[in-house]
């Protein structure tokens, strides 16, 4: 018993929360992830950027096994990703996920969306779940919309509810898969602000995004992907002012100067 707990503390002490080792994945003939090695420390905010089709969304989705991998290992908090089943469901509960298309449960109210996981997965009691849901909804600024259905909310509001829904599970790490790409421009900031607050609060975050402003201000590290590979990793300032690879220089020149 004691040995196990010591081992756990060791894992915690090293601070490695998400570890990907030589991960490979194919979509048919397309080698979408090629020998990906990536380690994310506890409390770290990592922003993954890159041209479309570079595999960044796929990378994000493999971390809670919404996409399976062909080879390599992924470990979360020292535990390798289990195969499909109970274990996997438990792990997914610890990994919050925010999607590009929000994916709020369309037949449930905003409040029910945030309560469902707590009740069905965490077995929380209904009253406590509701309290927590309401306080999370307040925290992301949509407390007054609690009894509406998702379709009655704006995109920005829906995405903030989605963040609250993920937070309700007390995740160890949050994955954001292009959370602002489906939003009207005027709604992007309200979502980014919530994410920035989350980063300041010390949440471990992996964010796939095209929002370079967010990468600059909130990220501890920028991971640049192209053609299924991690081409460059650096702190934001260094990456944006002095990218090392030609691929990254090319990408940045296309997006930053207009």
């Amino acid at each position, binding site marked *: 018993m004691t040995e196990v707990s010591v081992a756990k503390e060791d894992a915690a002490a090293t601070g490695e929360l998400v570890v990907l080792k030589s991960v490979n994945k194919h979509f048919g003939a397309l080698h979408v992830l090629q020998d990906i090695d990536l380690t994310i420390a506890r409390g770290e905010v990592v922003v993954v950027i890159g041209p479309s089709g570079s595999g960044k969304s796929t990378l994000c989705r493999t971390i*809670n096994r*919404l996409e399976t991998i062909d080879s390599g290992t992924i470990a979360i908090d020292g535990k390798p990703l289990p195969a*499909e*089943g*109970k274990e996997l*469901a*438990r*792990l*997914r*509960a*610890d*990994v*919050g*996920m925010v*999607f590009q*298309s*929000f*994916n*709020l*449960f*369309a*037949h449930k109210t905003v409040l029910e969306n945030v309560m*469902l*996981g707590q009740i*069905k*997965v965490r077995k929380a009691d209904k009253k406590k779940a509701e309290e927590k849901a309401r306080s999370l909804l307040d925290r992301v600024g949509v407390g007054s919309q609690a009894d509406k*259905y998702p*379709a*009655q909310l704006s995109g920005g509001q829906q995405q903030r509810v*989605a963040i609250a*829904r*993920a937070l309700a*599970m007390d995740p160890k790490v949050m994955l954001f898969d292009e959370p602002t790409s489906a939003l009207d421009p005027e709604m992007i900031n309200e979502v980014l602000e919530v994410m920035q607050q989350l980063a300041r609060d010390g949440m471990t975050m992996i964010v796939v995004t095209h929002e370079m402003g967010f990468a600059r201000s909130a990220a501890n590290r920028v991971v640049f992907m192209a053609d299924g590979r991690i081409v460059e990793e650096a702190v934001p300032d260094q990456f944006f002012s002095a990218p090392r690879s030609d691929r990254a220089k090319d990408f940045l020149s296309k997006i930053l100067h207009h």
Partner: protein
Amino acid sequence: MPSTYATHPEARDIVFDFISDYDNPTLLGAFWMTVKLTFFSGIGSLVWGTLLAAMRVSPVPLMRGFGTAYVNIVRNIPLTVIILFCSLGLADIFHVTMGASDFKIQGFRLAILGFTAYTAAFVCEALRSGINTVPMGQAEAARAIGLNFTQTLRLIVLPQAFRAVIGPLANVLIALTKNTTVAAAIGVAEAAYLMKQMIENEAATLLIGAIFAFGFVVLTLPTGLILGWLSKRLAVKR
């Protein structure tokens, strides 16, 4: 038969006088049997059809295979054959009597078994098309918060799928109501059984046909209207 006329000669003046001659079953009793057959078979096929649909989308190949095979075999067999098999095959050869002591109750229960087995295949397919209308992201989001396959299906996918197919399910239910007439073939005293008796004994064939046609419309029209209204009311807005 003419006993009523002898004791009540004035009954001849009434247009529908012959109706009251039938008491095994009576007209209302026969339609009540139709309602009972429809009700129990409807419940049964909804439950069994939902399970079949769950099998057809499940990650277990054996279940998927069973669901697919079941639907493709059962929906392609004429209902009359299924109902006759339930009575002549299950009861007479394999002695499956569904716990019934007398022949009438046995026929009733076996008919419900047959209707359930048959209609479930159609419920399954209606529901499966409903499952296809639920965006992939709904199930992904459910899995991402830690719900397992059964919970995802039960709490997220099926409730949305059901709302999407209330209309098609109303069709299935209306078809079932009318299909229950096949139970006459194994001696269940429902509407068609009585109609056959009447046509054999009376001259007013057209009138009898009209009465029974009207009876079925009275049963099925509200089903369609109510479910049509529900389908609009419960539609999931995206």
